[in-house]
């Protein structure tokens, strides 16, 4: 099972926040739950990226994204600048987004929630959000598959409607990404060990490398050079 335990989610997420804050300007925040809330949900917190200006993707940017993800053909130094500014204040940046990376106890994987706002704080409709999302994502949202892919659901901790990138295929995807490593879920002994730590961090980054770009969030390739 390519699953992540709640503990490993917290470790991976904290590592992600460090990486993100090293490489990006907008600050990611690890929102720690108060103890009672943590007890109810058996998760200690979630990652919040707040007030990110809407991206407006062009085909070339999409191409840059996918080459960043899949191919390593291009030299790193050429890519750095571009990828780091994929999310940028555009003319349409009257829209800002909040992204939360939360834990799904059912699928035992991280998943992404997002919510778009206008400048006056009112919430964007799904259609407006689709227009802000990368073209490939918008395509999925607008065709018949939207219910399986981006769904309105209650934020598991805030109890208000957010849009969720549906986590039901994530475990399958992580199996592919993590290979053998995904099979070794960190057991009791490993919980505190270095290798468990590394696995959690790798898992989270690998997950983000796929889930992030779907909503226009990317890290420069350097961030994926794994050092722990």
């Amino acid at each position, binding site marked *: 099972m390519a699953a992540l335990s709640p503990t490993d989610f917290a470790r991976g997420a904290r590592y992600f926040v460090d990486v993100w804050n090293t490489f990006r300007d907008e600050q990611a925040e690890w929102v720690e739950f108060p103890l009672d809330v943590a007890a109810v949900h058996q998760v200690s917190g979630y990652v919040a990226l707040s007030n990110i200006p809407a991206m407006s993707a062009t085909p070339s940017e999409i191409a840059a994204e996918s080459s960043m993800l899949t191919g390593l053909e291009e030299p790193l130094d050429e890519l750095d600048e571009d990828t780091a500014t994929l999310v940028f204040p555009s003319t349409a940046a009257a829209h800002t987004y909040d992204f939360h990376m939360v834990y*799904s106890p*059912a699928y035992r994987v991280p998943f992404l929630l997002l919510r778009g706002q206008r400048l006056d704080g009112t919430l964007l409709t799904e259609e407006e959000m689709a227009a802000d999302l990368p073209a490939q994502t918008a395509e999925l949202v607008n065709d018949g598959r939207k*219910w399986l892919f981006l769904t309105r659901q209650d934020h598991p901790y805030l*109890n208000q409607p957010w849009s969720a990138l549906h986590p039901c295929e994530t475990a399958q995807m992580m199996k592919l990404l993590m290979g053998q490593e995904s099979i070794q879920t960190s057991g009791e002994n490993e919980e505190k060990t270095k290798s468990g730590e590394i696995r959690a961090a790798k898992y989270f980054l690998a997950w983000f490398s796929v889930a992030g770009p779907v909503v226009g969030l990317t890290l420069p390739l350097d961030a994926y050079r794994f050092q722990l």
Partner: protein
Amino acid sequence: MAGQPPAMEVPEDAAIQKVVWEGNFPLRIQLEAKEVTTLTPPPPLFLMAPRLGYLPLLASKIEPHFRAALPPGTDAIWFEYRGLPLKWHIPTGVLYDLLAEEKTLPWQLTVHFRTYPSELIPIEGEETVKWSYMNALKEAVYIMHGSTKPVMSLSQKDQEELWRSLAEGDFNRHTSSAASLGVSTSSRPRSVPLRLYLRQAGTSGAHVKKWEEIAVTTRCADVMDSGSPATLGGALHKAVPHLFDEGASNNLPALATELGRRVSGLEIEPSTSRRNSITEELTDSPRDTSRRGSSAESPGGVPSAGTSGMVRETSEEGSGGVGSESTTPRGSEAGESDEASLAKKEVGAEGGGEVHSDVVDRSFPNGLVVRIQGTEPRWDVPLNWLSRNLSHPDHFLHISVWRREAGQE
């Protein structure tokens, strides 16, 4: 029903499921005063709401009644109970269990057709409700079987049938289309999907005013617990231990500890009981009247002793640990085809888990109120049994939990 063979027949499960399915309760619906444009407000509407249904599915029955009084504009129907907008993606019966603490009937709701509140998931007709259901089903099936495949591989037609039969409240049709999920209800799941609705401490005296006062959380509960079948109490103790810990500050700390110890399977009392009624009461809904009449031996109501494989006679001298000879059950769960490696363990354990004395209070300690499908089951009911029989069509066992404050009731 005369002349039927003694109970302990597997088909009883189906009978219980049918009763659960047919559960409904009366609503009294009035139009929000601000939306009344006529001189005299329209009279309230009374109707029966299926417990397993979702509020927006009632729209076609409600809207015509109020149409004439509505201001011009587009409709977006939503409901409110004592100032709290009701989340439509939570099944109607669960909303009632969670919010109507005194169980007053009919349940008095206010309907709105304008100014849809931002705390509710936007709704674009029945399709939205359907997908909310399908996604919940997928989640539950994943918890039970480790894959969403049974749901994802449904044909468009089967999927539609599964939904239509639920929307129309057709039990037989739903059961047969649920069978196309290929998920056998008799085989034991990996885990039991729980949807817990926890009203925060200190709010039980007052009505819920905001959704922030309620934590909704999803859990995968183990079917077995230290070799015994997991009980409701054990599962809750594991899922939300703080609810039980807080009891320590209450007057009955010992009971909480005791409960924790017992449900963890460490201690099993000698049995003096032969027949245990699982629930103290069934529901307030009219649907169980016939049922009560037919189960003479168990005034407690529906899931009565002997109607399922889970409650059965146990050895008189039953004592000691899990799996000891004295806990061998007299009957096994016919119809259950467990994996061979686990079957033996379970059979041995299932008997053991039920060896409890009647003198022990099986209600939840410290004023914990635990409601499932309108019942307040005892803590020692095996979780798997509850899951099989009291789950919603989304396969989740929806459980409302809060603490009754001292002096209440």
